[in-house]
Every structure is written in C-alpha cells, then in structure tokens.
C-alpha cells in the first residue's frame, strides 16, 4: 500500500484513453465499474473537447458481479460497434475489472466483429498513465500497421502526440513546418489525428519523428526493428535542440540541413540588456523526463539561469534525468510523491519553478513563481492562441512564458534603486500582475538552521527586494552556519553578500 495525496499520472487506462481520443475512427471499450467515467471530463473540460471521448464503459455494479459481467462486456462491445461503426476497436480493463479477470481481449475475439480488435493488457497495480499511452499506441501499431511501399517524396511520420498532452496540438504544426522547410513531407501524424487506416500505412514514411518518447518510444523501436525505420532522438524544444534536430533529420533524410530562423527571437531577446537581470536566477525543473531535459538546456544555455535542481515523476525516464543531473552538478529527484517535491522546493527556495500544474500549486503556496512546462496539465495549458513548445515559435513562446512570472528587468532595477520609497515598495510584486503573488514572505519563513537573526540584520534583510530576499536569507544562513556563527548581524549579512557576489 502506498499513501498518495495527489498524483502526477493517472492509471494506465487513462493513457489508453488519451491515445483513443486523439485518433479518429477508433473506439475503446473499457470494462470498468460505474464511476470510472469521470475520466471523460479530463478531455471535455480540461482540453475543452467538443465531443465525448470515443470510449464505452461497461459501468458494472455490485449486482452484476454475482451475475455475468462477461456478457455485459460483450453486449457493450456489440452496442458500441453498432452505434459508432468504428474502423477498429481497442478493448481492455480498468483496475477493478482487472481483478474480476473477464479477459476483455479474449471475449472480443470470440464475437467475430468485422473490424480489427486490439486487446490491451495494462497492469493497473504496477504501471501508470504514460506507460498506458505508450503500450496502447504500440499495440495499435503492431496490430494495424502493414509493410507498404515508401512514398516517392521523402516523408516522415510524426509520432507521440495524444489528447490531453502538453501543447501537442501546436507542436504538430511547428514540426510539420520544420520538415516542410527541408522539403520533407508528412506521411502520418499519430496517434493524434490518425485513423486506423492511417496507422496501416505508417511504413510508407522514410523515417519517424519521435516527438514524445513518453507516449511513442515502444512504437518507434518496433518500427525500427520491423522495417528498419530510423527515428529521431532529439526533441526539438529550445533553440539549440531545434538546430540539433534539423541536423539529425538532414542526416537521416540525406539532405542539407535548413532552418528558417527569420522568426526566431529568443537569442536576441536573451542577449538584449533587459535580460541581464535573468543571469543566474535559480530555477528548479520538474516534470516528465522529455520536457525536463529540454528545459534544463534552455534554462542554462539559452536564458542564462542557474539550474538548482531537476527531476521527473515518470520512472521510465529516470536514467536520462539522472545523467542530466550529473552534467548540471545537481541531485536528480525521481519521485511521484508530491509532498517530497514540495519539501525539496521549500528547502531550495528557487526564484522560478519550471514544473507541472502540481508545482504551480506548490509555487502559489510558497510564493515562488512557476511556469508550466509539462503534463499534468490544467485548462489554462490549452490556450486559445497558437502556443507551441517545439521549433522556432516554441522557443519564442518559451522565452515569453518563462520570463513573464518574474519581475521585469527594468523594474527590478528600479526596485533596487528605490527600495525604501513609500510609493515604490516591493511588497506589491511584479507590476504586470494584478495581485501580489507573495503568499508567504521569505523573511517570515522559519529558518532551518539554529542561527539567530539579530533585529538589525532582520530589518536590513527586509530592505532587500522580495525576489532576491529568499536567496539572501538562505545564503547568509549557510554562510553563518558553515563558519559556526550563532548569530547573524548586519555585518554577517554583508560578508555573506560579498562572499556570494558574482
């Protein structure tokens, strides 16, 4: 038994729903008790989908358990087939149905439906949502994809985007544009936008672009093994990664690399003097492995932040994130325990969190600004405007959204100059945000060490602008305790300041 307060990932059948809902012409019959239909609202509310997910739940009840849940499942399959006329069906069980062992795959097979049926075995008590999506897509590809002749033009498949993914909708457009600029066409985008028929002709492409390893790694490997189809290893999030991606694609497709940088603004925005204040801002990065790896590179190399911690909640990506952490000289936090992430954040006191919706909540409570870079997502992560993470426009979007929660450069400068001014006091927070998002002032937070702040030092600390106050407090305490000092005076504060000056 594992005590969970909030979870980063849903159960594996929710991953299967993300695949099914992204596709067209596919129907998912899920053997599940009444109540599991809650998952529909993830798609209709969070993603604002205008149709119900193509999922039929058997919604069995206690009374059915004594009777015949197997025929209930078959009836649901039959009804779903007749009503929705899908081109293919996937069938499986949720956690409770797994326990009653009705074998949905076997039952569906005996029905003799005139369409392909894919049986899913998703171990609900061991695995989670991302595994469910990856496994479902893999099984669909294995069952439906057939060897075909290659397209005459060089084409690629875009694999990985699903329903309820973080910015998948817009990343697709961006990657299609990147390939188009190099004269490479798109054969199929899957699972999102693909029909079972489209899955059938995946092998017509010359290679695969693996957009999100979380959801399509297994399918990419299988296609490589079966048909020798190469797939890209670089995820084009950030300027450097996009350039690497273009080089990798050029290499696979045997053509000249080409990247239209006319709309790329991140490098200049990062170079312009207003961005000086971004230098060395301490950021903590947490999310799915793919987005975390990309974000770390952008944070350090493209914006000039200091990465003080990285981690991911999906163990499938733990190895990559551990390697990354080593390169950045920090500890890797591999956990799906939300309370542990909160503890680490409270301890590290970064100036910015790049995280998920969960970290956004933590940040709100700790008074630390946060930008969402990864699933799990909420309704505001599906903006009406075009807002990719990948490619050229993705880099521009990332610059804006990461910098937005912070105090603007010029403003930070003014706050430092006029810090005691009665009209310009810094408790108000960034001026472009209506309400101060400081819920807890860093000076009021209890110290972890035994060092005592003398009143004068405490007062001096309050004169330091809020967005660096937490760091100043922490640095001073570390400085003092390393030197065995029991008290912090104004002098200690400034000695520490000089010590950490950069």
């Amino acid at each position, binding site marked *: *038994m*594992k*005590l*969970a*307060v*909030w*979870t980063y*990932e*849903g*159960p594996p*059948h*929710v991953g299967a729903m993300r695949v099914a809902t992204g596709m067209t012409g596919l129907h998912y019959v899920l053997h599940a*008790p*009444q*109540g*599991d*239909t*809650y*998952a*529909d*609202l*993830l798609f*209709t*509310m969070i993603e*604002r*989908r*205008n*149709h*119900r997910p193509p999922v*039929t*739940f*058997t*919604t*069995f*009840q*206690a009374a*059915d*358990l004594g009777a015949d849940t197997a025929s209930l499942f078959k009836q*649901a399959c039959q*009804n779903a087939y007749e*009503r929705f006329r899908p081109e293919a069906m996937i069938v499986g069980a*949720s*956690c*409770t149905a797994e*326990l*009653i062992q009705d074998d949905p795959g076997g039952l569906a097979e005996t029905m003799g439906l005139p369409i392909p049926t894919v049986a899913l075995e998703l*171990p*609900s*008590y*061991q695995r*989670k949502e991302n595994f469910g999506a990856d496994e479902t897509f893999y099984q669909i590809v294995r069952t439906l994809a057939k060897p075909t002749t290659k397209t005459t033009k060089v084409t690629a498949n875009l694999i990985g985007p699903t329903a309820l993914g973080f910015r998948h909708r817009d990343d697709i457009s961006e990657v299609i544009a990147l390939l188009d600029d190099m004269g490479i066409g798109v054969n199929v985008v899957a699972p999102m936008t693909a029909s079972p028929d489209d899955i059938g002709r995946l092998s017509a492409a010359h290679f695969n672009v693996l957009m999100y390893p979380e959801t399509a790694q297994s399918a990419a490997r299988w296609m490589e093994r079966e048909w020798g189809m190469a797939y890209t290893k670089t995820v084009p999030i950030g300027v450097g990664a996009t350039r690497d991606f273009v080089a990798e694609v050029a290499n696979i497709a045997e053509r000249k690399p080409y990247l239209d940088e006319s709309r790329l603004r991140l490098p200049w925005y990062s170079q312009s003097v207003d961005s000086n204040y971004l230098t060395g801002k301490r950021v903590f990065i947490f999310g799915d492995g793919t987005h975390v790896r990309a974000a770390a590179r952008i944070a350090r190399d493209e914006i000039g932040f200091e990465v003080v911690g990285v981690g991911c909640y999906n163990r499938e990506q733990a190895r990559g994130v551990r390697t990354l952490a080593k390169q950045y000289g920090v500890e890797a936090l591999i956990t799906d325990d939300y*309370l542990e992430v*909160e503890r680490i954040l409270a301890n590290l006191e970064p100036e910015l969190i790049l995280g998920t*919706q*969960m970290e956004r*909540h*933590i940040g709100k*409570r700790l008074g630390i600004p946060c930008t969402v870079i990864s699933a799990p997502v*909420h309704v505001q992560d599906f903006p009406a405007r075009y807002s990719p993470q990948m490619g050229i426009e993705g880099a521009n979007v990332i610059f804006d959204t990461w910098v937005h929660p912070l105090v603007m450069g010029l403003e930070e400068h003014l706050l430092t100059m006029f810090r005691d001014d009665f009209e310009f006091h810094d408790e108000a927070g960034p001026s472009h945000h209506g309400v101060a998002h400081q819920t807890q002032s860093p000076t009021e937070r209890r110290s972890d060490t035994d060092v005592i702040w003398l009143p004068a030092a405490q007062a001096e600390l309050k004169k330091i602008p809020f967005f660096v106050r937490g760091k100043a407090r922490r640095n001073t305490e570390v400085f003092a305790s390393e030197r065995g000092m029991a008290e912090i005076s104004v002098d200690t504060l400034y000695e520490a300041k000089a010590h950490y000056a950069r």
Partner: protein
Amino acid sequence: MTVMPNPTAFAGCDDTSVLKERGQREVFCGLTSIIWLHRKMPDAFFLVIGSRTCAHLLQSAAGVMIFAEPRFATAILEETDLAGLADAQNELDRVVGELLNRRPDIRRLFLVGSCPSEVIKLDLQCAAERLTTKHAPHVRVLNYSGSGIETTFTQGEDACLAAMVSVLPESQNQQLLLVGALPEVVEEQAVSLLSAMGIEPVRVLPAPRADEDFGIGENTFFALTQPFLGDTHAALTRRGAHHIAAPFPFGEKGTTAWLQAIANVFKVADSRFKSVTEVPRARARKAISQAADVLAGKSVFLFPDSQLEIPLARFLTVECGMTAIEVGTPYLHRGLVEQDLEFLPTSTTISEGQDVDQQLDRCRQSRPDLTVCGLGLANPLEAEGLITKWAIELVFSPIHFYEQAGDLAGLFSRPLRRSERLKLAAVS
C-alpha cells in the same frame, strides 16, 4: 395553511411509468462526496483504500488542488497487497499509523471502501474496529463504502452519514435533527429560522467536530435537507428517530413547505410561523422572479447526476415556470422525494438509471432549451448547439432555503442569458 399549490395529477405514482434503463452510466462514484464532506468536518480525515484511479478521480473531480495536504488521501493497493489479504490489513495499520502520526489534529478517521477493495473483500469494518481500539480515545475510526459498484456520487455522503449514525449514543431528549452536509452559512440560516419559531435544540448531522456529537433516540425528530439520504434515513429510523416527511427546501415554496412540516410536528402556532417566515419568503419570491424571468416557458432536460433532480425539477417547474421534458435520476427514492414528485406533470418522463447513449438520443430529439448534465457531457452538447448547466455546481454551491432561492434560479438562468448575450456574427 396552504404553502404549495395542489399537486397536478401525477402518473408517475406507479412503477410502470418510470423509465428504467440499464447501460453505460455517466456518473461519479460515491468517493466524490469526500470533496465536500472533508470541508464540513475539519477534524476528519478520509482515507480511501483503492487504486490509482480513485486518487486520480478525487484529484480530477476536485478540479483544483487548493490544499497543500488535504484531509483526504488514497492508500493505493499494489500488486503485493492483492496477493494476500492478511498482508493488506497489516499494511493498513501501518499506513494509518503513519497518517495519524503526521496529523495529530485528526479526531475522526473514515476508511472508505472502493471498487477494488470491495472486489477483493477487504474487511474495512474489522479494520475500523481494530484501529479504533488501537487509537482510542483520541481518534475514532469508522468505515463506509464509496465504491462505484455500490454507490453513485452523493450516495457516498449517505453511506458516510449512515456509518456515523451507528455510533451515536442513545438519548431520550426531544430534539430536532437536520440531516445532510450543508455549507455553514446555509445551515445557520435554517437553524436561526427554526430557533425563531422556538424549536430547540436543533442538531445537525454531520456535526462539524467529534466533540459536538449528540445522542439520538425515540424523541429525536429528523428532517432531511438532501434527497439522497436513504440509508441514513433507515439508520435513524432503526434507532427510533422519526422522519418529518416534506418537500426539499429549494426555492421559496420548497423551503416554506419544509419548515411548515417541521413546525407542525413541534406545534408552532400559525401566527408565529407566519411572522418568522413572512419577510424572507417575500425576499425569496422577489429574488426568484428576477433571476427566473428568462426561465419561464422554457424547457429543461435533466440527466441523472446527484439525485437532486426530482426536487430541482419541482422548483424549476412550479417556481420558475419551466417545462420538464425528462428528469433522470440515478436512483428514485420514492419514499423520500414523493412530495416533490407529485408536483411533476404526467407529460414529464421520469427516468431511473441510465443508458447514456439512448438518453442523449432522446435529449437531441427533444431539443430542450436547457440541459442539466455532468461535465463529461456539457461541452459536447454545447458543441451541438444545446445550452447546458453543469450539474456539479448544484452540489457544491449553497442553494438551499430562502436566501439562496434567487441564486438557485440564477444558476439555471445564467447559461441562457449568456447565450443571448454572445454575438459573433458580422454586423453588416
């Protein structure tokens, strides 16, 4: 004193006229009610013994995660727990021990059964008794099932309250008991109206804190504030308490009839009843008429959700002038909603259970002006051009009694007003 118009002829009084369906049910399970129950009882913790799906449901249904460490959590069953049951009980002791260590403020702990824990027949009753002994006197441990195989949405509250009734001490004092978890502001309004009529003492179930528990017995008279409390009703009746049957206190007329039924039992003089209710009644009437002008003459279709559907349909038709095409409810507790049911006309289809695809077909065909449904259906129906009201707001918002009558009408009129307001076509 007539507080309600005469019931219209109701054909739904015999079972045959209720449309009973069996198919996919697009409803929440009983675990969902933890979201409001834990707010109502600040010293209680709800520990679901379930799967990752249960944890994900609680998180998704709550929408936003406002609380750093909420007073509910899931003990997620793992492969090792499923292997041997003896293990699971030990594991439960360990998890509960850790939890109570971290949260010394907890006085009441509910072990909440889920679909997987029910299927593997994990004995939570036995666990609750063992843990109560272990952690006495500081913490009382109770258990109930909020599983989807046994409960739908608000039935979770019913199961929880019924479990609480079973451990209330015996008392022969005469008292009025209000049953159902209501927002504090609403509960206070009801208590103050009843006190003004001289009815005392007034107790509430669930009591906000463990030390506010009271006894019950043959001189306890209870009124339900929610229509989904069938098991709690039965538990109280078994303990000798007497139910005061009434329509549910929604809107001006529902509230008046509900108060009147209580006043009759406690022999409140007509003049006193009138003087206490006159002003808020007039205020409620005015508020409803302002909010409900866009509702009059419009048709409404209610999908099954919280079991509030029958009383709400009564409010919408009798007090707001709407026509109910179909009123769906997960379960029809005829004994509890009879006094609301009799005001619905014969032309209204009453449906129990659900086959969501068939019900959607009927809804599309009847093109109601307003469809009341769950969050899974609302956007898809809006995209088809049907105006919808999310049913879940009716459970989370204060909607009972006089002062909220206007707000209740407003919840239904807002989507209609909004759709009239939006103009996106070119002007020329």
